[in-house]
């Protein structure tokens, strides 16, 4: 097992644990109320009271970053779960039925791939008004074809296995086989994909919030903090640097973790690397 303990895995796991830990902690405790303004104490430097100083409205930066981490994690989690479960279901269906159903699902997935997520988000926010949920649905939407493709590819391999043929010979139906044999065996690549998609979702949430399509004030978001700090770059560069670093840490953490998980679950990769 120790050969799996690569630097990627360790660094990824540490970063993810930190970000998730901070997000979880913000549910019960932040140093200050993240929305409490004190305009007289704006742009305060880092101190014992405000560990990373205050922003342009005198709000505590640490508290905002913590709550923003929670928002970001929530969006990514719901979006990946939602997109993932729908995508996996379609992937299994395509693989189980084959023929024109498979063709249809995969072509629709291709269209989904080609459709820009940003346009979809703008459309949603025009209809429902901008909110965190717009970001969630837009990101979930772009995740569906990704998961459908990964699941179907992996499932098609499993369908050729002897134990599946045996199950079919025993009279088990396509859907029962999908549930009992295919799903458990495609779980590994799906989980790896989910980890990578998680990183992409964090980035997407930051991008949407940057454009004002995600979290609405006073609920903080790394992306919005970044956009608000943009014109303050000369005056208070730290206000852009902190959320930027947070986005980097979260995305890097999940990406590294995903890579490391893939190495572990895909023995071919490990072997070819050792050769």
């Amino acid at each position: 097992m120790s050969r799996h303990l690569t630097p990627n895995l360790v660094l990824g796991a540490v970063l993810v644990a930190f970000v998730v830990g901070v997000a979880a902690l913000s549910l019960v405790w932040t140093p200050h109320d993240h929305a409490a303004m004190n305009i007289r104490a704006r742009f305060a430097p880092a101190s014992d009271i405000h560990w990373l100083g205050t922003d342009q409205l005198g709000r505590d930066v640490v508290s905002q970053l913590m709550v923003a981490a929670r928002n970001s994690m929530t969006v990514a989690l719901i979006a990946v779960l939602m997109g993932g479960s729908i995508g996996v279901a379609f992937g299994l269906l395509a693989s189980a039925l084959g023929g024109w159903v498979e063709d249809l699902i995969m072509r629709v997935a291709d269209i989904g791939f080609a459709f820009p997520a940003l346009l979809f988000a703008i459309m949603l926010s025009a209809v429902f008004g901008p909110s965190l949920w717009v970001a969630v649905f837009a990101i979930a939407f772009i995740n569906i074809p990704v998961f459908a493709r990964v699941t179907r590819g992996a499932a098609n391999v499993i369908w050729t296995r002897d134990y599946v043929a045996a199950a079919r010979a025993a009279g088990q139906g396509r859907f029962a086989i999908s549930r009992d044999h295919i799903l458990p065996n495609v779980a590994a690549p799906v989980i790896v994909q989910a980890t990578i998609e998680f990183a992409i979702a964090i980035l997407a949430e930051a991008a949407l919030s940057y454009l004002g399509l995600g979290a609405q004030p006073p609920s903080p978001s790394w992306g919005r903090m970044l956009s608000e700090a943009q014109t303050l770059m000369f005056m208070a560069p730290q206000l852009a640097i902190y959320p930027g670093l947070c986005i980097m840490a979260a995305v890097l953490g999940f990406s590294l973790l995903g890579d490391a998980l893939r190495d572990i679950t895909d023995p071919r990769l490990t072997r070819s690397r050792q050769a």
Partner: protein
Amino acid sequence: MRLTAAPALLAALALALAAPAAAQTRISIGIQQEPTALDPTIEATAAINVMVTQNIFETLTRVDRSGAVQPGLAESWEISDDGRTYRFHLHQGVAFHDGTPFTADHVLFSFERAMAEDSTNPRRIIFDPIESVEMIDEHTVEITLARPEAFFLFELARGPAIIVTPETVETNATRPVGTGPFMFDAWTRGDRLRFVKNPGHRNADEVALDMVEFRFIADPAAAAAALLAGELDAFPGFPAPELVAQFEADPRFTVQVGTTEGEVILAMNNARPPFDDIRARQAVSHAINREELIEGAMYGLAVPISSFYPPHGPAFVDLSDLYPHDPDRARALFEEAGILGDTLTLRPVPFPYGTRSAEIIQAQLGAAGMNVRIENVEWGFWLEEVFRNHNYDLTIVAHTESNDLGNFARDSYYWGYDSDAFRELWEAIRTETDDEARIALLQDAQRMVSEEAVLGYLFQLPLIGIFRDGVEGFWDSQPTLALPLAEVTVR
């Protein structure tokens, strides 16, 4: 020898240095909003008026930097004793940029076009008092009003009252042709717009600039970068007050902070609950802390208002004692109105002053026990849903027109304020031609809309101009929507 050579050398050096400086008669001006058309008689977008009024097009009268009415295309005028008949004597020898000589026919054409049934003029209210327009001779026009109108000469100086020629009205939206000191040259959509000097203008000798280039830069950070990189000579409506300190400290730039006619308000929908109840509106008025708002949203660069009238205007009365900042009083009033703890929707306009103020107002109303949900919407959505459909609880917007107290007298306006008492008062103001009496009436009007807490009155929108050192002559305040370039000089 060496002693005599030195002055010659210095003189040559001075000439060499002076020559390129003297050749510099072009200017690059940053502007935040790009209009979709360039004709102020078809669209109300502020940027149209800012760019073309007094530059490309001229009006009968002209408003100067102090807000006073000056001669425009009309070199003089007489007003009858009853205040209803205006006789305008037009400048002679004026020509449009396409060569057409300007005559009284053009005045008639422009006014009749604006007053026509199917007119698309965005400010027909200018022409409302007019009963008839008559041509006395080639260079004299007589306008008769149905009633005396105190603001008539001022209103005639606005962009929607420009004088145009029938040959080009169809194409003015993309190739404006007027009589002004500058001529349209080129428009690269999404990027820049270029004017050149009109050598045939009657004041051409006094116009310093040979070429004017407007650059459209919507993003404040990009605007600051373009100024710092020397790509722009001026940014007369700079959108980022937070960057003013930085430019003030930079010797390469001068900063002007002036006033506009823009009252920034927290509009409350008077037509529907909860703000059909005066106690709810009074509560909001008590909850507002203007000092904190101006510091937070405008970095201290704005003057607070307590009614719908600019503090630099002649009829201003200070009503800030009426509803002082008092969160406890606000909470009690919200409780009395039976809405304490409810959620209100705030849809600010998508400009920095709006979205920034919204967050602070949200916190201030929060301190008085109300939940505020901010919905940041697009400009088009705001115009449609808030302004036309009146679908909102609260919004934040600047009203940039001058003399706009009359908005309270409008039928089915988006504020939902419906008061016959005010309409009567406004009618009296409009028809009062004695300055002192009118000022007294205007003060009554300010008191009325302030006492009834029709709106939350926040601050007067500042005009921030950032100019490269050596650029002079821009207006420091904006008494009317215009950016006259004829007076601008570049060193």
